[in-house]
């Protein structure tokens, strides 16, 4: 059942988070998880004809590559969520439990940033291979300290353990990606990493 829902996420990014969440409990499913599945199905019932839309972009300028990433703690390990846009079109997104325990929200966000970075670089390589022009990719991240950390190696007592993941900084320093803070608008990736309904219903 959940596997069947997983296939539906191909054109329905908005259910990615809940499907991923339920998947984590497949070994010991409880009634509350079943309720969540039924809720998603009822939600889909009302929105059967919704899907992904691909709009034409301007052909006169190189296409932009933007990523939005976020991380939210729910238990010890946070969930990262991200969405990648190519021009006006959403091409990739995920909601994923982080493999490590984060010691701070900056740590969690930085981890999510690293993940988004990896995916973006893959898209960049593919586009280069197809010789499609694109602008420098921008990753939008709503955590200011994670953004600062990616630009500036402040060896801080709290970030010592994260220094292994120098990958992001290296790519920023050679201008392969740009990382921007998102201060005012609610991040799109929030949808992928956060409960849309009451968390106690899970």
């Amino acid at each position: 059942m959940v596997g069947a829902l997983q296939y539906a996420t191909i054109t329905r990014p908005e259910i990615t988070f809940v499907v991923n969440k339920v998947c984590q409990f497949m070994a010991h499913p409880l009634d509350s998880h079943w309720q969540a599945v039924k809720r998603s199905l009822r939600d889909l019932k009302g929105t059967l004809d919704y899907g992904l839309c691909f709009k034409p972009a301007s052909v006169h300028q190189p296409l932009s590559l933007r990523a939005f990433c976020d991380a939210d703690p729910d238990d010890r390990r946070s969930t990262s969520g991200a969405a990648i846009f190519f021009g006006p079109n959403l091409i990739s997104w995920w909601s994923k439990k982080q493999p490590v325990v984060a010691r701070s929200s900056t740590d969690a966000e930085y981890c999510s940033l690293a993940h988004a970075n990896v995916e973006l670089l893959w898209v960049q390589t593919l586009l280069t291979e197809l010789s499609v022009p694109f602008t420098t990719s921008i990753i939008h991240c709503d955590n200011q300290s994670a953004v600062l950390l990616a630009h500036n190696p402040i060896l801080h007592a709290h970030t010592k353990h994260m220094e292994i993941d120098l990958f992001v900084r290296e790519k920023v320093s050679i201008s392969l990606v740009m990382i921007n803070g998102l201060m005012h608008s609610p991040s799109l990736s929030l949808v992928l990493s956060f409960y849309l309904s009451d968390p106690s219903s899970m």
Partner: protein
Amino acid sequence: MTILSTSDGTLNRFKARLVVKGFHQLQGFDFNETFSPVIKPITIRLILSLVVTYHWTIQQLDVNNTFLNGALDEEVYMQQPQGFESPDSSLVCKLNNALYGLKQAPRQWFERLKATLLTLGFTYSKCDPSLFTYTKNKQIVYLLVYVDDIIVTGNSFDLVLQLVQKLNYVFSLKHLGDLDYFLGIEVKKQPNGTLILTQSKYLRDLLSKTNILE
């Protein structure tokens, strides 16, 4: 044997297929590698956004009896098929070609397709081995493979048709025309050039299976 019916439910034709009992195969003896790459959804979406941006044509192909096209690297024998036994029951059949049910059938099919595309002048992508590209004087054709479902797109309609025809000489193909249904995803083209991807049919089937639609 399956009974194929048309979309309005009337009987269309019967279909039967010889299938090998692949579950008796032993690794290292009857087969070695079974992995076969499939196209990544992100590659499909990336190509689709290029398609809508540059107003390219997008065609869909289907290969008939896909897995029968694969060649076998290993020596594989099977029991005589029921109803077609020879009087000497000690005989077994040696397979010259891949058959449905063999563990290596998808891989052998992909290898065969890849070899054919490479001789036609395609190159495969290093990022996604199921994406093939063909370039000739600024004309470009992309070919995406998901087992037997193939999408062809490119900036020159003539070149796309030409390559489809060349491929048709080697394999028996069904040219399904403009892309409208791929891997359970419906692709609808809007008058303003946008493409909308939905899974209405898949979701409707899923909901009726779970009795939520009533």
